[in-house]
C-alpha cells in the first residue's frame, strides 16, 4: 500500500493545525454564552474577564451574582462584583494574575440576549472600581470587504 500522499496530507494538516493553535486565545468563550457578532478587528488582551451568561455573572471564573438579581436590584452598582474586583487586585499570585490586575481593563463576554441594563450596571461597577477601560468581546463577523 502506498501511503506517501496520505502522509503528505497529514503532515501539512498537522503543521497547519499546530501553527493555528499556537495563537492561543486569551479568553475562551464558554459554550453556553452566545456572543454577538461584529466587524471590529481589535485583538483581545489579557484583562479581567467578566462572563455574563443568561443566568449568572462570573468574574475571573468565579460566580458572583445572578442576572435575575441584578435586574431586580435598583442600585446603580453591583456590590459582589465590586468586592470581587477589589479581591483580584489584592490577590496577586503569579505573573499572569499580576498582568490581569495591572491592566486596569475589563473585557465583558456577554450573551446576546442579556438585557442592556445588566451590561450597563456591570460597566458602571467596573469604572467605579477604577477599571476605566471596558471592552465588549464579540465574534468576528466575516466582513464583505475584500482585503486590499
Amino acid at each position, binding site marked *: 500500500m502506498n*501511503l506517501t500522499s*496520505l*502522509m503528505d496530507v*497529514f*503532515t501539512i*494538516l*498537522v503543521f497547519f*493545525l*499546530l501553527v*493555528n*493553535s499556537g495563537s492561543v*486565545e486569551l*479568553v*475562551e*468563550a464558554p459554550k453556553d454564552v452566545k*456572543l*454577538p*457578532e*461584529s*466587524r*471590529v*478587528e*481589535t*485583538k*483581545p*488582551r489579557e484583562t479581567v474577564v467578566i462572563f455574563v451568561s443568561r443566568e449568572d455573572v462570573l468574574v475571573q471564573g468565579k460566580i458572583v451574582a445572578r442576572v435575575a438579581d441584578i435586574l431586580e436590584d435598583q442600585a*446603580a452598582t453591583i456590590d459582589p462584583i465590586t468586592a470581587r474586583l477589589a479581591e483580584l487586585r489584592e490577590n496577586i499570585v503569579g505573573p499572569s494574575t499580576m498582568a490581569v490586575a495591572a491592566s486596569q481593563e475589563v*473585557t465583558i463576554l*456577554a*450573551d*446576546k*440576549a*442579556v*438585557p*442592556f*441594563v*445588566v*451590561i*450597563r450596571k456591570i*460597566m*458602571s461597577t467596573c*469604572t*467605579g472600581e477604577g477599571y*476605566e*477601560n*471596558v*471592552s*465588549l*468581546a*464579540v*465574534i*468576528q463577523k466575516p*466582513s*464583505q*470587504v*475584500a482585503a486590499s
Partner: protein
Amino acid sequence: MARRHHYKRRTKDAHELDVTTFLNLMVVLVPFLLITAVFSRLTIVELNLPSSTGGASSAEEGFRVEVIVREAGIEITNGKSVIASIPNQDDEFDLETLSDFMVELKREYPEHDAASVLMEAHIPYDYLIQVMDIVRSVEVPMDGEEQYELYALFSEISVGDAP
C-alpha cells in the same frame, strides 16, 4: 521455508522507510488538533465610557450625534432635538435606514467622530453591538464589482442609558 521467504522480501524493499509509527502519531494528532482548534475568532469592541460617577448627560456644547434605541424604534438626535425617528418594521429595528441616516450625517459633519448610543433598559445586548457597528462604519458596494468598501463614520462611540 516460509520464514525464509519473508526475510528475503524484507531485504528486497529495505530502502522504503517504515512510516507506520509516524502514521499512527499523525492519525492521533490530527483529530486531537482538529477538536481543539478554534475557528471562531474573538475580537473586542473598545468603549468610550462616561467616567465613573454618572456624568453621562451630554452637557457638552455643540453638535453631538446620539442614537437612542427604544423598544418602539430608533431615534437620532443632535444632542438637543430629535433629527429623525425610525419606527420598527415587523418588530425589528430598521437598521438599514439607520445606516443611511448615519451616512447622511457624516456627510454633513465630516469633522465629527464622536457619537453616543443610548439604549433603553430591557433591549437585548445584541442590538447594542449591531447599532454600534452601524454607527462606526458602513460598507459601500463598489460600482460594477462584487466587492465592498469600508468607510469609517463615527468611530468614538459612547454608551449610555436612554433618557
